[in-house]
């Protein structure tokens, strides 16, 4: 009988680091895309939407395969990077790229819905008060859409944490480098190491519960803060 997780905690750190990095990129890109899309209307926008949402509907393996074509030794991006002596495929950044791309649609779709919900009169009032478009977004639209944007961020983090298919295609299973928790679980099951698989599953469940619990308490404290500020001053 081996010790817990065979004393190798690296998949946990890789998973967390990957998810944090992917959430960061997907937050920025998803929000920017949503804000940009808010201002553009027309028939061509349906295509843009389709492209942005593709990673959500395609099987992750297909997304991973496309990424492999793009970032591989002979892919357009891969070639360019190789010229600077960089290889993305089967490296830690590959896990981040895969997770970012797969999580992106969730951030985009949620942020867009949240921004659309903001009453345009607030934005117009800000404009008549002399605010630049950046200030209108940063100080009016974003704060008012914040609950939705936050929900999108959390969904993205959860999606990045659970990412498997695209990651396996692009980053492979290199212990201590690209082996995230889902990948370790898969290969543990495949090699009949059920105990290791169960232990990692427990870790995953723990992280998820902690995430949900933290979220629950955070929203409760937010609600309490708003209602206390409502009465404290009156």
């Amino acid at each position: 009988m081996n010790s817990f997780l065979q004393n190798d905690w690296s998949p946990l750190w890789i998973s967390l680091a990957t998810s944090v990095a992917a959430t960061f990129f997907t937050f920025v890109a998803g929000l920017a895309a949503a804000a940009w899309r808010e201002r553009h209307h027309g028939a061509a926008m349906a295509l843009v939407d389709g492209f942005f949402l593709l990673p959500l509907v395609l099987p992750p393996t297909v997304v991973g395969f496309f990424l492999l074509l793009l970032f591989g030794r002979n892919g357009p991006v891969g070639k360019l990077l190789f010229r600077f002596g960089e290889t993305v495929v089967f490296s830690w950044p590959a896990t981040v790229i895969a997770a970012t791309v797969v999580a992106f649609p969730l951030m985009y779709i949620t942020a867009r819905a949240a921004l659309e919900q903001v009453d345009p009169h607030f934005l117009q009032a800000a404009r008549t008060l002399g605010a630049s478009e950046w200030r209108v977004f940063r100080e009016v639209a974003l704060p008012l859409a914040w609950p939705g944007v936050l929900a999108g961020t959390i969904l993205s983090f959860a999606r990045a944490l659970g990412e498997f298919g695209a990651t396996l295609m692009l980053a492979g299973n290199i212990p201590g480098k690209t082996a995230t928790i889902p990948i370790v679980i898969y290969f543990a099951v495949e090699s009949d190491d059920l105990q290791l698989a169960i232990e990692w599953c427990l870790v995953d469940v723990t992280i998820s519960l902690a995430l949900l619990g933290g979220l629950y308490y955070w929203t409760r404290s937010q609600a309490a803060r708003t209602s206390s500020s409502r009465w404290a001053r009156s």
Partner: protein
Amino acid sequence: MPLEVQIAKRLRDFTLDVSFTAGSAPLSILGPSGAGKSMLLRCVAGLENPDQGRITLNGRALFDGHSKIAIPARERRVGMLFQHYALLPHRTVAENIAFGLDGISTDEKIRRSAALMDRVHISDLANRYPRELSGGEQQRAAIARALATEPEALLLDEPLSALDTHLRSQMEAQLQETFAEFKRPVLLVTHNIEEAYRLGDRLLVLSRGRVAAYGDKEQVFRHPPTVEVARLTGCKNFSRAKTISPDAIEAIDWGCRLTVTQPIAGTPVHVGIRAHHVDFLEAESQASPNDNVFPCWLVRSSETPFRTTLFLRLNQPLENSSDYHLQAEVFKEKWLHFRDRPFPWHVRLSPQSLFLMQE
């Protein structure tokens, strides 16, 4: 004139096509819902662009269809008061007011917002959030916020429509005070006739995107040029008319001959009288020949707390019919005084109160 507007914009059901100027006297823009009033304000504020035309403010072109100028809203220096105030819900009153005060020191911001809050009497609400304020307080905060940027013109979109009746007169006083201090162009959009009259010095009546009447408010109310304007300014009684002599007409729908004092220019095709101008006489003998006195019968009446509206038929009663010729409005006291008198009653349509209109 400081503000000159001449624009056209195709809307869904009609074309907004208006031209007017505004100086330091507030201009009321009156019209029914959907007449294009708000769109007009939004074009001046820069939230929408007209299809063509020109808007200038103190000599500065804000929009010019010819030279393709469309200054963005943030650079127009035009303050706007939205119907539901649009106070930023995540900022306190003081922060809302300071929002437009960008690029100055924090001390200066605090000093200026405090002065503005003082001006609209909400100094004690600085740290409240908009949702903690009453409608009137929200409006005061919105006024202060709009004035903070020291705009060169102020636009108000239905400023009192979201308020309870008892708050309206208070806020009307606040607005009058604000306009008096502001001394720059003020455009005030409303569908309420009394508001338009009380708050504006001049009046523009808008109907389906067109200017139906424009000028001094007294003039527009006293002599509405068309039936439409008369109706939009609250007149209830109209009749088709035919000229008989230089000072007499025949009111076709009322079935009577009327003496008029207003010179009959062109072909007046309608005559009108406001409901509160219809006079009731104690006895027929009080009347002189050219006084337009007619016997009348009551068809029905409708009471409000202080006034009664009477629906009348002239000349002869009509059994089993609710058709009426005129609506008269009288104070309750007067109504109680003569309601039990036998018919016919006698009404006078004073020549001074009658006005002639085009279709």
